[in-house]
C-alpha cells in the first residue's frame, strides 16, 4: 500500500469570508485549510492545534493582523509557525513593520494563485528543514551532555580513590607527607596512594593509567585495589609489583597499561625500598647536597605482559631528606608556544628552592608548572607527592638466638623453653610465643620422627632473628629431603567420623605464621618461618 504523507495544515485568517473561500479554493486539495474570520478565533484555533503555516490578513476590526502576529511570536509554543501576511495595499512601510514583527513573507491581494501556492510551498519546506535541524541539534546536545556526564563520572571515580586529607597521620611525628592531583578536563588516569602496611612501614604509590575517561578510571580503581591487597601481606616492592602485573596483564582486554612507582619506607629507620615500572624517575632533595634523581627502571610498565620479575632497589633516608614523586603531567606541561616543561626546568626549579616542607613543595611546584603553561589548556593530570623524614633514623637492632636440638622428642620442650625465655627478654607477646611453640612442636616432631634413619650424630639447628617486631626462624636439618609445605592439605570440612588423624600440623604452621618457605640447601632441609609479632 502506498504511504500517505501527512498533509500540512494551513490556517487562513481574514475578516472577509469571500477571501477565505478564494484561499481555500487555491490550497484546498493539497493542504488541509482551516479558516478564522478574526484574530481571537484564529488564536483559539492555533492554541487547540497549531497549524504548519498561517496566512494572516492585516486589516481586521478589533485585533489587527499585526497584533495576532505579535502574540503568536511572543508565545514559544507558536513562535516557530511561519506567518505570511495578506494585504490589500502595497505599502513598503507596512511590509517593514510586518517583517519586524517576525512575519515570514508578504503577499498582496488580490491573491495570484500560482504565487500563493509557490510561497506557501517554499515556507512550508523552510519550516520542515528548520524542524529537522532542531531535532538533530537536540540529539547532538543530548550526546554532548551524556559525554560530559561520563567525564564527570570518570572524574568522580578518580577523586574518590585519593587520600585527600592532610596531614593524614597526625599522630605520627616521624615524617611529613603531602600530595595533590590536578585533573585535566578529560580524566587523565593519574593516581597516588599511601598507606601503612604495618606499624612502621609506609607504602608510597604513584601511577598513570594509559586509558582515559571512565574505562581509564575503572582500570585505575582496579590497579589501586590490587596494589593495596597485595601489599598487605608482602613487604617487598618488587614482589608486590610483580604480582600486580601478573593479575593486571591476565585480564586486560582493552590492553591498558600503567606506569607505576612503588616504594616502602620504614619511617623509624629511614630504609627505603622501591620499584620503578616505567614511571618518571623521582627526585630526592637533601639539605646541602645536590639534587638526586633515582634514574633507573626495574621493569616495564605494568599490565601489558605477564611473566615479568621486577627488581627493587634500596637506599637510606637521612633526616630532612625529601622524596618528590610526580607524573608526566608535570614534565609534559606545554606552554602556548608549544614548549614542554621537561626535567631540566623541573630540576632548575627544585634547585632554586631550599628544602621546602612537603606541603609547600607540592604547591610551589604546581605553581611553577602552571606559571610556565600560562593559559594553554592542561592536557594531562598533574600529580605530585612529597615525603620527608623528619626524625633522626634509628638503627635497627637485631636480637638473635641460636639453638641446637638432638634428634630426640624430649628436646622439643627444651627448645620451646629457651625460646620463651628469649621472648620475655625482648617483649614478645604471649600469643606470638604460643604460635611459635605450636609451630616448632609440629615441625620438630616431624623432623625427629621421620627425618632420619639413625638418630645419632645428627643435630637440628635453629636460628631466631627478632627485629622491628618481626621474628624470623630458620630450622635446618640434614635428614631426608622433605618439604613439609608440599604435602596435601587435610580437609577441614569433614565430620568427626570422616576426619583422618594426621596432616594437621603443617596446616597449623602455615596458618599461624605470617609466612613460611622451604629450601633444600647443600644437603640440608631449611624451613623458614616469619611471624609479625604485632598484627
Amino acid at each position, binding site marked *: 500500500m502506498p504511504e500517505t504523507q501527512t498533509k500540512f495544515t494551513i490556517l487562513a485568517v481574514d475578516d472577509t469570508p469571500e477571501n477565505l473561500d478564494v484561499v481555500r479554493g487555491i490550497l484546498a486539495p493539497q493542504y488541509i485549510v482551516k479558516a478564522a474570520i478574526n484574530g481571537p478565533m484564529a488564536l483559539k484555533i492555533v492554541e487547540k492545534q497549531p497549524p504548519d503555516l498561517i496566512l494572516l490578513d492585516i486589516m481586521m476590526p478589533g485585533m489587527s493582523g499585526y497584533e495576532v502576529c505579535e502574540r503568536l511570536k511572543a508565545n514559544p509554543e507558536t513562535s516557530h509557525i511561519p506567518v505570511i501576511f495578506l494585504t490589500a495595499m502595497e505599502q513598503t512601510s507596512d511590509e517593514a513593520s510586518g517583517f519586524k514583527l517576525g512575519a515570514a513573507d508578504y503577499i498582496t491581494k488580490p491573491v495570484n494563485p500560482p504565487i500563493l501556492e509557490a510561497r506557501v510551498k517554499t515556507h512550508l519546506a523552510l519550516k520542515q528543514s528548520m524542524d529537522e535541524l532542531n531535532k538533530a541539534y537536540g540529539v547532538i546536545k543530548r550526546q554532548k551532555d551524556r559525554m560530559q556526564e561520563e567525564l564527570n563520572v570518570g572524574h568522580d571515580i578518580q577523586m574518590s580513590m585519593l587520600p585527600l586529607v592532610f596531614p593524614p597521620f597526625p599522630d605520627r611525628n616521624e615524617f611529613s607527607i603531602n600530595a595533590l592531583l590536578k585533573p585535566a578536563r578529560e580524566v587523565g588516569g593519574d593516581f597516588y596512594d599511601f598507606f601503612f602496611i604495618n606499624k612502621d612501614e609506609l607504602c608510597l604509590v604513584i601511577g598513570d593509567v594509559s586509558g582515559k575517561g571512565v574505562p581509564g578510571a575503572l582500570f585505575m580503581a582496579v590497579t589501586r585495589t590490587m596494589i593495596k591487597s597485595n601489599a598487605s601481606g608482602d613487604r617487598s616492592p618488587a614482589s608486590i609489583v610483580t604480582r600486580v602485573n601478573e593479575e593486571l596483564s591476565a585480564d586486560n582486554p582493552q590492553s591498558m597499561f600503567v606506569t607505576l612507582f612503588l616504594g616502602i619506607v620504614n619511617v623509624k629507620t629511614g630504609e627505603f625500598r622501591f620499584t620503578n615500572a616505567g614511571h618518571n624517575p623521582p627526585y630526592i632533595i637533601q639539605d646541602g647536597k645536590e639534587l638526586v634523581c633515582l634514574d633507573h627502571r626495574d621493569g616495564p610498565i605494568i599490565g601489558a605482559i605477564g611473566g615479568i620479575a621486577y627488581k627493587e632497589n634500596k637506599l637510606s633516608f637521612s633526616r630532612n631528606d625529601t622524596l618528590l614523586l610526580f607524573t608526566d603531567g608535570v614534565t609534559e606541561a606545554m606552554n602556548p608556544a608549544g614548549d614542554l616543561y621537561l626535567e631540566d626546568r623541573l630540576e632548575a626549579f627544585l634547585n632554586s628552592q631550599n628544602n621546602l616542607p612537603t606541603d609547600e613543595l607540592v604547591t610551589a611546584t604546581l605553581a611553577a608548572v602552571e606559571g610556565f603553561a600560562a593559559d594553554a589548556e592542561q592536557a594531562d593530570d598533574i600529580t605530585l607527592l612529597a615525603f620527608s623524614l623528619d626524625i633522626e633514623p634509628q638503627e635497627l637492632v637485631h636480637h638473635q638466638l641460636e639453638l641446637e636440638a638432638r634428634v630426640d622428642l624430649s628436646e622439643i620442650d627444651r627448645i620451646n623453653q629457651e625460646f620463651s625465655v628469649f621472648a620475655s627478654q625482648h617483649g614478645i607477646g604471649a600469643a606470638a610465643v*604460643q604460635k611459635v611453640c*605450636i609451630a616448632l612442636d609440629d615441625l620438630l616432631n616431624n623432623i625427629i620422627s621421620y627425618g632420619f634413619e639413625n638418630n645419632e650424630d645428627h643435630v637440628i639447628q635453629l636460628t631466631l632473628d627478632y627485629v622491628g617486631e618481626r621474628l624470623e626462624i630458620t630450622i635446618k636439618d640434614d635428614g631426608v629431603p622433605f618439604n613439609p609445605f608440599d604435602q596435601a592439605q587435610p580437609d577441614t570440612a569433614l565430620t568427626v567420623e570422616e576426619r583422618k588423624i594426621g596432616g594437621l600440623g603443617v596446616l*597449623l604452621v602455615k596458618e*599461624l605464621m605470617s609466612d613460611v618457605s622451604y629450601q633444600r640447601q647443600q644437603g640440608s632441609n631449611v624451613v623458614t618461618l616469619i611471624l609479625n609479632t604485632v598484627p
Partner: protein
Amino acid sequence: MEINIKEVNGVNVVEFTGNLDTNTAPEAESQINGLLDAGAAKILVNFENLNYISSAGLRVLLATAKKMMVSGGSLKICSLNSTVQEVFDISGFSTILSLAANEADALAAF
C-alpha cells in the same frame, strides 16, 4: 603438664595446666582412655589453664571424640584462650567439636 580429673554431676571434668603438645599428649591420651575404659559417658575437657595445643594434642581430642561417638557418649571442651581458639578454627575442630565459653555453661549443656 598437670592433669586434674574431677567429677561434677556425673560429668568427668579433665583440667589441663600447661601445654598439650608432642611430649604431653601421650599422658593426656592415657588418662582420658582410662576414663573411657571405666565407662565415662560424659567428658568435659577444661582448657582454662592450657597455654597452647599443637597437632599432637588435637589428635588426642579427635581420637577421643571418635571413640565417644561410637559409644554414644558426649564430649565437650570449654575455656579456650585466643590462640587455642584460633588453632581450633584453622583445623576445623571448632565446627566438629562441642565448645563452650566456661565450665558452668558446658556442664549445663550436658
